[in-house]
């Protein structure tokens, strides 16, 4: 009967139910978009690190992220190669630089130089061409999402990076950049030339181990041998990049702040409508109390109303959120909806509605059952 009474109380006043559902829907969509953007941003920030084939990253001291790191001289590579347990060390060059469009104009890019044969960091999700395509003269790989930004339309289009002519030799799909400066892959030697680096210089040395289980020990050994560099595990470098882009720049705080705002607004709207519904049904709750119901029974009715509101609101909110997610898929800032986020949102919605029920529960806690005798 608790479920029946809660459901009937809820649908009894349809206008109020609509307001409640709009409140929850608004909160769900806002939180889903904000957290989905956060998830999307997180994925973009760490995608390069996660797709690199190595357990340890050697970076210049104080490197902030994958995109913002100083240069290493090159002598580090030999030092690391002599450490027991190290299988290989792959140099990578990464830097912001300028892309000149074929039809004029320019765009900021992140140039990623890696030796295609070394396998340290190759473009992935390739829809045209292969990693080996980068060995062709002037070859670069770009992502489909950014072709318009880069002023190219197809394979073989010619552009320029700094003073060097480049040719689009491969296309990837879904390698997006949080900085909005597209990643452009090329070979290590070509990247060094474009960026004007010495032959041994690199932004990172990516260390591949014989046994990934020895990561911590090998990392400590490398640290003891190299001064003035950071020696980071993949997880540490990932966290550092996330810290820099999401919290150092305030972008993540803004996204999480938006989500919290959504939760607050949703909570207030649901709390108001639940309180008003409880107030309207106060005489009925007093009757229940006079009939001998425990306070807990009445609280269960109110919490059930909140839970039903949450379920209905969640279904509606997620339907709209999934439409927004779908339309964001092909944009430079996709909203990522994972099963974990969907489940988390459901739990959050239930919690939001349960918290909203507190004011209503406090109201009935103070209920005087003698009001059943009020004329």
């Amino acid at each position, binding site marked *: *009967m*608790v479920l*029946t*009474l809660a459901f*009937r*109380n809820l649908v*009894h006043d349809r206008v109020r139910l609509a307001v409640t559902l709009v409140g929850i829907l608004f909160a769900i969509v806002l939180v889903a978009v904000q957290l989905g953007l956060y998830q999307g941003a997180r994925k973009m920030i760490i995608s390069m690190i996660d797709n690199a084939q190595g357990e340890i990253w050697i970076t210049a001291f104080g490197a902030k992220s994958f995109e913002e790191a100083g240069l290493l001289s090159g002598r580090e590579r030999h030092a690391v190669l002599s450490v027991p347990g190290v299988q290989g060390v792959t140099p990578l060059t990464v830097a912001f630089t300028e892309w000149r469009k074929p039809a004029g104009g320019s765009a900021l890019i992140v140039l990623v130089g890696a030796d295609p044969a070394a396998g340290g960091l190759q473009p992935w999700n390739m829809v045209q061409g292969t990693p080996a395509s980068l060995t062709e003269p002037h070859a670069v790989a770009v992502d489909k999402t950014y072709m318009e930004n880069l002023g190219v339309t197809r394979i073989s289009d010619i552009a320029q990076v700094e003073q060097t002519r480049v040719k689009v030799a491969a296309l990837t799909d879904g390698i997006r950049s949080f900085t909005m400066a597209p990643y452009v892959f090329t070979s290590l030697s070509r990247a060094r030339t474009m960026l004007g680096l010495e032959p041994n210089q690199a932004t990172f040395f990516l260390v591949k181990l014989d046994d990934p289980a020895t990561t911590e020990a090998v990392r400590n050994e490398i640290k003891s041998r190299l001064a003035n560099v950071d020696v980071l595990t993949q997880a540490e470098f990932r966290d550092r990049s996330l810290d820099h882009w999401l919290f150092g720049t305030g972008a993540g705080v803004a996204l999480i702040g938006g989500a919290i705002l959504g939760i607050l607004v949703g909570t207030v709207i649901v709390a108001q409508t639940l309180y008003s519904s409880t107030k309207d049904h106060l*005489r*009925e709750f007093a*009757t*229940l*109390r*006079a*009939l*001998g*119901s*425990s*306070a807990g*029974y009445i609280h269960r009715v109110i919490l059930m109303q909140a839970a039903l509101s949450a379920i209905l609101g969640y279904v509606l909110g997620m339907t709209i959120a999934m439409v927004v997610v779908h339309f964001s898929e092909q944009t430079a800032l996709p909203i990522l909806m994972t099963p974990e986020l969907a489940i988390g949102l459901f739990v959050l919605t239930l919690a939001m509605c349960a918290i909203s029920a507190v004011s209503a529960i406090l109201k009935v806690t103070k209920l005087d*059952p*003698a009001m*059943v*005798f009020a*004329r």
Partner: protein
Amino acid sequence: MSSEAVLVATDVVKELGQGAGLVRALKGVSVSLNPGELTLLMGPSGSGKTTLLSILGCILGPTSGNIRVAGTPTANLGPEALAEVRRRHIGFVFQSYNLFPTLNAEENVRLALDVRGRRGRLAADQAREALTKVGLSHKFKSYPGNMSGGEQQRVAVARALASAPSLLLADEPTAALDSENGQAVMALLSEIAKDKSHAVLAVTHDHRTLPYADRIIHIEDGLIVSDERPERVRDAIVTPPPTIPLDEVRSEHAPSEGASGGGSRRAKKRKMKTYG
């Protein structure tokens, strides 16, 4: 009073408000209610009837005095313990019926059983049985909004009866009903009181209810001023208790709040259907 009394209240005092606004609503009331009796509690407005009903029904606590419901002392119990006493021993019928408008008749009765932890098919059967007893076997699925005042009050009586309470308290049960429906409800309460497992106390202003009483208590200014047994009262009443079959008092009567009407002639000719 009798050791078999369902309810025994001794020297009950109730003070309402505080400071200069302090009012002694009850000034030392002692009363006991016995099973098998329909007792009317009468008195002018402000005499303390409803306050006494609230205290006897374990809804309000007394300022001082002792109350035992089915042998359980209730004077110093907290709200949850009082709720349990109500759950176990007391059924209520209210002036305004206090039915849940979003639930049908059967669900309204089942709710009272649900509160007592009785659920499922057995509860549904008990609810239907209670509704059948009050002559509403044809209204299981009707909503309060589609029922007459008399029918709603009979659903309220069924709700109070379903859990088989030893004490049935009715607050102005006929006040919102027309004459015919009011008499039918009183006849029903009278029949319920004949069952030796219930004591029935009804607060009322309505002198048409007097013929149904086994006992009449008058209260004024917070004190019981008379406690009379039926014969003397009934002798004084000119009109005999009407015998209206419950099934005849149906939705043909609009839910006329407080209205009095003549009722159907056909109904009056028929004999009263026995409760139970």
